[in-house]
């Protein structure tokens, strides 16, 4: 399922709980971005806030706010998801970043556990239920 990365406890101020949760997806694979859009589409209280293909553009575009959860692919060309998470987390410590990939947890680089991500998600496990649970657990 998903793993809460140790040492991470996000603090939300609760204001967003009344509205839709805004989700950003960062992945170089169009097919997975489409699948994420379909998943969010099926959820009433979650909404797709934006998507981008690289870590660099994520850092730049998410810095302006407008996101509650970032679904971040680890393996992307360029900066990659871990470094992007580190930078986003440094700028907005309250923002929940969920790392994703198709690799097993054991195959992830050590940096994945201390970059500030709130959770790790196997991409194929993405579902409305799971997104809600992540949101509730980290909230």
């Amino acid at each position, binding site marked *: 399922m998903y793993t809460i990365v140790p040492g991470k406890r996000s603090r939300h101020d609760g204001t967003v709980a009344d509205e839709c949760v805004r989700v950003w997806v960062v992945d170089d694979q169009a097919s*997975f971005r489409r*699948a994420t859009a*379909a998943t969010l589409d*099926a959820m009433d209280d979650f909404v797709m806030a934006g998507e981008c293909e690289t870590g660099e553009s994520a850092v730049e575009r998410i810095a302006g706010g407008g996101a509650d959860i970032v679904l971040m692919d680890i393996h992307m060309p360029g900066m990659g998801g871990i470094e992007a998470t580190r930078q986003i987390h440094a700028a907005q410590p309250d923002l929940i970043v969920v790392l994703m990939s*198709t690799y097993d947890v054991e195959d992830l680089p050590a940096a994945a556990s201390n970059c500030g991500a709130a959770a790790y998600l196997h*991409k194929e496990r993405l579902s*409305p239920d799971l997104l809600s649970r992540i949101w509730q657990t980290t909230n």
Partner: protein
Amino acid sequence: MADHELKPPPPGGMLPHWRVPQVLLTAAVRSSSLLGHDLMNRFRAERYQLFLSGHLALWLSAGVVLPLLEYAFWYRTPYVLLFAAVGAPQCIALAFGLRLARLGRYSQSISLVCVTNWISAVLVTLINPNFLAVMALVALVPVVFAEPYIRWQRGLAFTVITAVCVLTMAMLARFLPIPEVVQHGPRWLETLVIVVGVPFNAFHLMVIVWNNAAALKTSEGRLADRAVELAASRTRLATAADEERRRLERDLHDGAQQHLVALSVLIGLARKTDGDRYQALLGEASELVDTSIAEIRRLAHGIYPPLLVSGGLIEALPTLAARAAVPVHLDLDSLGRYPTSTEAALYYCCSEALQNAAKHGGSGTTVTVTSHADDKTITLTISDTGRGFDSATIGMGLTNMTDRLSAVGGRLVIDSQPGRGTRITAVVDTSV
């Protein structure tokens, strides 16, 4: 003309007289233009024939012509003709040996020469025991020369026979009385033969020994160079194999697996949905399945083309050409089936060359692939009309092609110049 005056004097003119013997000796022993420095490669032809012709000339002059001259001018006795009676058959044997060598039968040739030379040397010592020293050296000459041409067991036997032969000659000289007829002959001629014959044969022996050593050293050097080159090539091949696996992992992970992951998410959603959304999700999922199948097919084809397994190059190359990003004209002639490694190496050479042509050739590039095969070799030529490049700066792909071909006993010739297209010729020896 001015440039005539600028010409430097020939190097020979600079040589002080006292160095001439030294230079000649060096030439004879180490780097004679006749014998060459790459002796190992030329052993089988010029060197052998040169030696045998020289040996024949020696026997002809000292063993036939000299006794006849002696008989004619200085000492008219039938005894002198005995030398010619030994020398003439020896010359005939040497001439026959020379013929055997021309047919490439070196081992038989040198064995014949050694055996007849021993017999002749013993007989000459029997006729005139005073010639022991000369004949003992003559008995050694072909055996020392024979070393690279015969198997070591025979070499061992030859060594023992030579020792026995020299011992026999020594015993003959020690215990046989000097015949009367010899004692009355012209002593100056006998002295001349000894004074010329001993140092000449000793020198000849040393030249052969050093020549063999020089050849060995040269071939050792070449072997060492080859070993270094092989080690480098092996490393490059291993690196290329690793790189290939990495690429495969990336292709699998970034391609088919990502589609399957998205598919899994969509199917998961569809299970909990109904109505129109259900149909839309299924439609999207079906698209992803098709994409994944195409992706896996492409990947599998890249790993090993199925047609290459079933039909060989003659069937696989047309498909490769049809899939290429540039127009390819094929002219495949008499290609058969070859070992898998050979077919794979040639296929990937062709594939790499087509990719290079498409990538670097520029617009309007066309490629012609021709093949020619006979009993011994396959030659595959891939020429394009693209931009070309400086052949001194070949990239990783071409280096890999060279390594891959050399691993199956082939070689790659790259002929390219900026603005003049590229021609890549792969030749593989199929006779081994």
